[in-house]
């Protein structure tokens, strides 16, 4: 077992928000099997800010898909917020994604031809929240990420890249999820705008949100409090680090 060689991560005596036990994912293409994830086990507690880091092809995207309930493991288990979600059907996974996970992607985060406010309200539409409450909660989420109030009714193509990512974070927040899963959220941004977005994550983490950041850049990962390093489908390092705090935005 690889994990024996690693220093044990120090867990707080908290609730396990995420628990992976011997989680593996195998892809078959043309009769050849590729192990994208090989018996990965780890826990993430409520309120943590974790970066999952690794080069491309390391299996971090596969791990992100499983953590985000977009896919299920081939073997092993994955529990989210106390529920085993590794055997669920497609529609059951959609329900989990709707209620427990907030996604922020690298690109194509917002619906085109749609206002900022409507973009943020989208998860609430799918969860059947009444109209008045949708608007109130979407505005709350937008103000939590520091999005300027005078642009709520701008279309998604009329705002800057940094603002797009903050709207995406607001949308991820709006359903009050268990975890926020960000896949290379600063990949398309310049350093300065990227810092602002990462600062937003830190602020939300300070408010008690569990945040998982997937990245291949070490200087992005160091904004988190813990880094899980992945290579060739295995965890090669799992350590706490001194967080690089970005001053309030």
């Amino acid at each position, binding site marked *: 077992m690889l994990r024996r060689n690693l220093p044990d991560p120090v867990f707080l005596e908290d609730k396990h928000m995420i628990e992976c036990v011997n989680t593996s994912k195998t892809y078959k293409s043309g009769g050849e099997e590729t192990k994208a994830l090989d018996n990965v086990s780890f826990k993430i507690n409520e309120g943590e800010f974790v970066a999952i880091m690794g080069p491309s092809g390391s299996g971090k995207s596969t791990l992100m898909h499983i953590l985000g309930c*977009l896919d299920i493991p081939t073997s092993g288990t994955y529990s989210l917020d106390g529920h085993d979600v590794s055997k669920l059907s*497609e529609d059951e996974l959609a329900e989990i994604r709707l209620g427990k996970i907030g996604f922020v992607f690298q690109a*194509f985060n917002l619906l085109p031809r749609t206002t900022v406010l409507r973009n943020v309200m*989208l998860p609430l539409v799918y969860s059947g929240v009444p109209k008045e409450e949708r608007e109130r909660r979407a505005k709350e989420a937008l103000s939590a990420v520091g999005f300027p109030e005078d642009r709520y009714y701008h279309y998604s193509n009329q705002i800057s890249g940094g603002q797009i990512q903050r709207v995406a974070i607001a949308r991820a927040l709006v359903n009050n999820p268990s975890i926020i899963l960000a896949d290379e959220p600063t990949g398309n941004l310049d350093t300065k705008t990227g810092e602002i977005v990462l600062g937003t994550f830190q602020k939300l983490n300070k408010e008690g949100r569990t945040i998982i950041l997937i990245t291949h850049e070490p200087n992005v990962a160091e904004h988190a409090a813990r880094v899980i390093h992945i290579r060739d489908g295995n965890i090669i390092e799992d350590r706490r680090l001194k967080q690089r705090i970005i001053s309030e935005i």
Partner: protein
Amino acid sequence: MNLNDILQETYTALVANKTRSILTMLGIIIGIGSVIAMISLGQGASGSITSSIQGLGSNLLTIVPGAIEPGRGQVSSGRGSAETLKNADVVVLEKIPGVAYVSPELVRRFQIIAPTGNNTNSSITGVSQDYASVHSITMAQGSFITDANIRSLSKVAVLGPTIAADLFGEENTIGKTIRINSTNFKIIGISESKGGSGFGGSPDESVYVSLPVMQRVLAGADYLSTIAVSVENEEMMPQVQEEITATLIQKHRVDVENPDFSIISQKDILSTLDQITGILTIFLASIAGISLLVGGIGIMNMMLTTVTERTREIGLRKAIGATKKNISLQFLAESILLTFTGGVIGVILGWLISFAVSSFAGIDASVSLRSVALAFGVSAGIGIIFGYYPARRASSLNPIEALRHE
């Protein structure tokens, strides 16, 4: 996700691709429009044929000499050659219960000369006083041939409006004299225009004289070409028809299998014509239906393109938590909204077409509620049928692959 949300999403998506949506909708508009126009013109034509036949007289049984053999139709020369209907038959027929009027008629063509110098060849009908009641003839001017005219063998004539105009133009015709086959006749009336075409020429082109004058002076014959019988009410028609058959067979002393006369019921003719116009309507509507089908395929084509173009959007929606049902409903709603809007515009277009045709070509057209309901049903149905496959394709996309789609 409630109906309001779906409609708003759908509207946004359709408006974003305005030109494409309108062009695709055009297929449905043309399809529904032509179905509506064809059905309403067909129904209108059938209605006007029915009313013009009913205008020739209601509850009418027409007895003609000679047999109508099944499959061969009536040989028209039979009327001229068969001389089996006699004046004496009329007396017997009048005694049959249920018979309202009996109108013996003899029709021949003669040259008619007016004092203006105009002349025309037209059919002259020798009639009794009941002719007007049986054939629902009303007078525009003057009076029809009366019982007194018949008994006194008066040489008087009533003209149809077309023939009166042909002979005298705009002039007042009453009291003028015309010459038929070297005999002078005084005009005592002009009949009202009926428009419809009857058997043996339009009533508007007829000239009426009294039957005894026709038989003795003009034709020199004692037989009849037709006996028209008007029945008291519609329910009694089959019964009266049987009674007439039995009476005439007995009177003419002919074989039951091989009678020397035939009875044409107006009802039979009406139902045959109804059948013909019905078939024509269905035929035209199915041609229009093909264009509707082509329109539907256009919808499917557009929806498939939309699904491909919006693959990443579908991926994003699914990642956020949209279920398969949410996605398929959204795309199904798009195609239904497209076809339904097309249907509404198509109904209006079809109504305008049939309105234009009826006012310019003179064919009556009636847009029935049934055909409108049918058009809406069909257009919504096309939306569901041709939108189902693209919607299913959208909903079964894998979110991971959809998000990676370029």
